């Protein structure tokens, strides 16, 4: 698995894919979708698809792929090697979503929640396979959220394909297990070889599993905290674990769209600065002379009374 592209820029997203087996273009295929690294507060989230002709399903099963979570890292590596050797009939593709992309999406002005991000990424991968000429007839998806809605969403998007969304699909359908192995192997590699953009000095990279409830992860988060910048981009700022540490120990930062959360009215003077007529009349309490010409209002220029 060549992760060079992602390593060159680990702030966005990156797509990796195997060559498409010729067989997958000529025969009906099933396609599995799974994700790795949804829960951790650290590192990327990886989406994987794996596909193989229906006629070759027993060959795939023979590789003894299983839910990646039940396997050790070494076993996953070994299985990914086997999948790679089966390139005559197995294809895969991955989308690696950097923690920075996750943070900035979830904290966007127009919020983009993790479910939407997951669904969109999964659909883009199915579309990729279709575009590459894979004759996808069945799609199997593992989900953590409500399966019905997700299934409906996918079915509407891909009406020609038979969609099955199922919790624990990764242990039920080998093609989903295979996808989960690809995704997990990629995430393991990325995390292990993470190149920090930030200069963290001699901070030990002993961050445990990356799951919020892991004491090692928690300790590491508080060790790498900078009072102004918060965390390195390896951390998902949008996770409540991270937010709580920031709220408690970092310098408060206010954004123009973070006001509503505080419950207060939107701050005056924001944006176009168009007070109501009533506020104009209200100002007559104070000397009206203070009003300066619109030239200055329109340019955000104020009189300064003192240094």
């Amino acid at each position, binding site marked *: 698995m060549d992760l060079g592209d992602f390593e060159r820029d680990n*702030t966005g997203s990156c797509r990796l894919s195997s060559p498409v087996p010729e067989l997958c273009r000529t025969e009906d295929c099933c396609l599995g979708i799974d994700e790795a690294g949804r829960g951790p507060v650290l590192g990327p989230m990886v989406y994987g698809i794996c596909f193989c002709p229906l006629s070759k399903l027993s060959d795939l099963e023979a590789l003894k792929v299983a839910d990646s979570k039940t396997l050790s890292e070494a076993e996953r590596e070994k299985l990914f090697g086997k999948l790679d050797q089966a390139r005559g009939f197995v294809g895969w593709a991955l989308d690696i979503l950097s923690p920075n992309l996750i943070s900035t999406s979830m904290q966007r002005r127009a919020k983009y929640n993790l479910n939407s991000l997951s669904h969109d990424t999964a659909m883009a991968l199915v579309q990729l396979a279709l575009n590459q000429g894979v004759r996808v007839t069945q799609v199997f998806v593992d989900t953590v959220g409500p399966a019905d809605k997700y299934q409906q969403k996918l079915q509407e998007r891909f009406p020609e394909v038979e969609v099955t969304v199922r919790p624990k699909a990764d242990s039920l359908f080998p093609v989903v297990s295979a996808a989960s192995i690809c995704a997990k192997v990629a995430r393991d590699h990325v995390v292990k070889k993470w190149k920090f*953009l930030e200069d963290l000095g001699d901070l030990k990279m002993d961050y445990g599993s990356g799951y919020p409830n892991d004491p090692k992860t928690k300790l590491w988060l508080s060790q790498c905290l900078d009072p102004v910048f918060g965390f390195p*981009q390896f951390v998902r700022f*949008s996770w409540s674990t991270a937010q709580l540490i920031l709220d408690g120990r970092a310098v408060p930062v*206010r954004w123009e769209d973070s006001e509503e959360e505080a419950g207060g009215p939107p701050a005056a003077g924001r944006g176009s600065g168009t007070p109501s007529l009533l506020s104009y009349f209200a100002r007559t309490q104070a000397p009206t002379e203070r009003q300066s010409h619109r030239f200055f209002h329109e340019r*955000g220029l104020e009189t300064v009374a003192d*240094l």
Partner: protein
Amino acid sequence: MGSHAERKRRDGAQPSARVPSASPAAAHAHRESMPDGAAPAVPGLIRLQPSSVRAAAQTPLHLLPCEIQHNGPAAVSRFFSPAIRPGSSGPVVSFRGRSLHGEEVTLPSGYMGLVLREDKSEGPEDRTVQAIGTFSCFTLWGLEAPPGPNARMHRALSWPSLATAIHAPVAEEDD
């Protein structure tokens, strides 16, 4: 502040000016004779230390689209600068998990930027500020979008040239 002390100084500074004089010419002469360079001993001045301006070095500045409720050290070169990368419309970076899009703003020609800091070691009456950095451009960051040509900053920076025109002496000739 010690307005008492200030008043004392003020009275001491301009005794002649404060008396409605029977002899205006005398007071006038006093003023006129003042050497060109010597600023009168007026209270309430905040002096900019010339040597500090000469010594001040070019400093990178970033104007962020958020309010950081803190004054003091910040590990900009460890956390921020290395994370800046080229985007399609200019530099892109993240701060606190939010995406920022930047734009280089150059000061109007003939203008120079100074970062001033007050030297509090002096007494409370004589305030002094020192230049601790200079700049001729800075990076203006927009939240999730580049500031763009409509940014208020650009319009604000058109003020110096208009101000110069408004405040230039009027042409003498015609009437």
